[in-house]
């Protein structure tokens, strides 16, 4: 682990157990973008979808590319036994 990871991990000690293997993505990529993925039609009050894969019929993380951010949260939160 490099020094920057160690520095970061000092600040994430105390992370809840369920978050130790979490993934990260840019939040704006987890929901469809007006003018990019769809255009809202004021008359029908519905979106016209140019990117059907962006519809959030499923969990938002289905659509975004969420992955580990490279920090070792396990190392920061699990103390090796003596």
């Amino acid at each position: 682990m490099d020094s920057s990871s160690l520095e970061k991990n000092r600040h994430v000690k105390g992370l809840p157990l369920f978050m130790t293997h979490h993934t990260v993505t840019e939040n704006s990529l987890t929901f469809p973008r007006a003018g990019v993925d769809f255009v809202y039609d004021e008359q029908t009050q519905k979106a016209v979808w140019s990117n059907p894969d962006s519809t959030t019929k499923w969990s938002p993380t289905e659509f975004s590319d969420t992955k580990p951010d490279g920090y070792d949260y396990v190392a920061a939160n699990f103390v090796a036994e003596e």
Partner: protein
Amino acid sequence: MSVVLIVSNTGDIHCDFLVDACARQAAECFRLNTDRFRLSGVVDWRVDTGEGLIEIDGRRCRLSDVTLLIYRRPIPAHQLRTDIEPWVRRLLDSEWNAIECALSQAVRCKVLNGLAGSALAQNKIVQLQAARDAGLSVPETLISTDARALREFAARQRCVTKGIVNAFHLDGKDLRSAFTSFVDAQALGQYDPTGVPTLLQRAVEPAAMWRIVVVGEKTLGFRFHGPELRQVADSRPVERHLEGAYLPVPPHVAEKLLQMRRALMIEFASADFIEDPLGAFWFLDLNPEGQWAFLEDKFGVRISDEIVGLADLDKSPVENRKIHH
């Protein structure tokens, strides 16, 4: 006049489904998308007399005409702006949020979901207690900051861990998310939970998982199974690969789940159960704002019609009542 008022955002496809359901049931629909309405919508509300009018895109809605109010993931439009100071963004969204929340008190009809109930129902501790009170089977669950208690609990059975409220957390522009995961009982000995409430739950062996959508007094059951189910603690990453079917919910489960819904003071929930190899149903959790459009798409079950069907028919003109379910 009978109007279904939807408070949401332009990119929520569930609301597209609801707009279609309104058309099928000859109910007028007013979609208040907060990403547009907070910037250019018109509100004219005499709070002392109760007369309220909202307007956008040439469409108008009197609050007294609303027969069903649906909240579904409104977004803070001003916080997405870059042309004003952050504190002004927060202030504006806070004021708009107050108005949108107050709509639930101004309309005299069903609200899906009532905001107080919805907020409380997102809490997994509250859910599990309500499920237990309703007579549903709940897996052994421990929330503790005590290292020894957690270790002993995990040593007795295979366990999972998850967030107490939700597993999505904003970090600046990033979204950090975590699925339910299995717990390594041995490694747990090296984890210090001091100051960190930790939820452990017995991992129930799945023969199948059920997504049961509750709308008012109806339960719509979807049973999923497949080898992938045994390999993960959270079905969401694999649910596209599972085989599924729309099936009646066993009456004893449906009855208790409806009892639980009433206790939580919500009209809608998307609940997850595990069916174990002996056929017993174990309540895991529910989401008062859960996704359902993929179920309508995949199985052709009109969940949107069930939701719009909650509109208060007594407030509708007689000629409209014939058309409603």
